[in-house]
């Protein structure tokens, strides 16, 4: 249950696949144009409901409620071992390694 004025993320299909620009690559033409944005929920709702939000600029946007208190999950990713090999190599070429 999400409350009125909760900060939420919504999703909406802007153009269905059949309504898209005719000059698209085949793979893109098969899928709809989708949109996500965030805002203050305008009335109590459940995840999956069609809702209205007031965005950071005060616009009213409609869409499906997908997340309450949305947060970022991007990170520095899994370790990439090649990077330490680059470091070792560069220091050896330039400074002669650990001599």
């Amino acid at each position, binding site marked *: 249950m999400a409350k009125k004025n909760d900060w939420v993320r919504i999703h909406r299909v802007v153009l269905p696949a059949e309504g898209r620009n005719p000059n*698209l690559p085949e793979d893109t033409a098969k899928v709809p144009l989708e949109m996500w944005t965030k805002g203050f929920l305008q009335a109590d709702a459940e995840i999956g409901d069609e809702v209205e939000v007031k*965005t950071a*600029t005060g616009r009213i946007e409609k869409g499906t409620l997908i997340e309450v208190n949305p947060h970022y999950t*991007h990170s520095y*990713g899994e370790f990439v071992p090649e990077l330490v090999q680059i470091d070792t190599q560069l220091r050896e070429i330039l400074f002669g390694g650990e001599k």
Partner: protein
Amino acid sequence: MALAKDYASVMGRNNEIMKNAMGLDYDKFESGKMSFDYEALMASTGYTIEEIMKVQSATGVGNTPILELRNLTALARKYAKPGYGATILVKDEASNPSGSFKARRAACAVATAKKMGYKGVMAATSGNYGAAVASQAAMQGLKCIIVQECFDSKGVGQPEIIEKARKCEAYGAEVVQLTVGPELFYTFLSILEDTGYFNASLYSPFGIAGVETLGYEIAMQCREKYGKDPAMVVCTSAGGGMMTGTARGLIKAGATDTKCIAASIDLTGLHMASDTAFNKKSCTTGHTGFGVPYAVDPDHSDVPRSAARPLRYMERYVTVTQGEVMYITEALANLEGVERGPAGNTSLTAAFALAQELPEDEYILCSETEYTGAGKHIQPQLAFARENGIEIKFGDPSVEDKPGVNIILPKDPSYIKTKDMDIVHMRESFIKKACKKYGSFDIDEDDIEFLAVETNSTPEFVKSTIEKLKK
């Protein structure tokens, strides 16, 4: 009566929406033929370069330091013939308030919007420009909406773009995120129409005039510190604004002997509007997917006439590979103690190779760095590539690189090379596209002269190209 908001109706009102959203009537620059008055468009900002510097410095933009990369220079000299290997310099544009040179572009646009009484600004961008507009809007008390192409149809976002969304939101902007496709422009126009905000287009004259200060500073700072202009300035090229503005600024400073080199990451074979290719890219900007189309056909952006016209100014256009850029980004952190974002290091990667063509007493300068952070860093970008089935290995990028299939990290720095694009072919391609758009090969002397300037060539070259195209 409410306006119809379907795709065709909104796109049909494009010219009208744009006119309201920029306070600029592009028709007055048109000749009625193929040509238009580019210099009049640039002058329409009403700002001199000194005034732009004032506008920028009022918000802490510009006057960034030039860093001398001593260890990377020493490294490049190891692979150059004796007496060769120019000193590599970089303009540390990451030290602008929003973390990239795009702050220069946004400063003038947002100041203009404010002066003209707009309540908010909008920009369509998945790049650093969003944060730049959002940062400027925050400083000047305007509202801001950024529209991004961010996700594929499975809802998987590019980590680099998600980070840029976070930064826009940190500055108080609203971010509208979309899946892959050129109809982003429709969503952009539709919101622009509803809000009546200013279109802070990347390609407006305000934006490009804002970059002129960068070229101007490069000349002034190099003269003060080194007593001469750099032999080469290397610009990472996507939409062409960096190359255009920097070159114009260098010319305004009288640095006419400095050669301007465009550099992009080679992403040949990855279709830019393809849903499945979207997350096969391991760098989302500074690549040929933007660089080449915008060089040979600048007028397909979100304004009727783009102020970014890079082919006018570039002497060469070189490419490097994703793996080489990742390697140099790591080298910059590890050998220079300067950690910056990968895409901005495209020019540095090219400069590392190009420095080896120049004598030791010359200077080669990269026109930018950009900020780095979660998602927008070699570690997550390489990790994301691996998750998407891209093979990452050491090798020879010049023979093994296949964008979307692998990332070849150079097995040692001697494998970092630039490839020159066929610039003559690009000029021919420009002329061909211009004639096609115009609907005829029969053009008069004015238009021939215009095409010669547009392609940094000569009227004779334009005429002989048209003769060839007619056959």
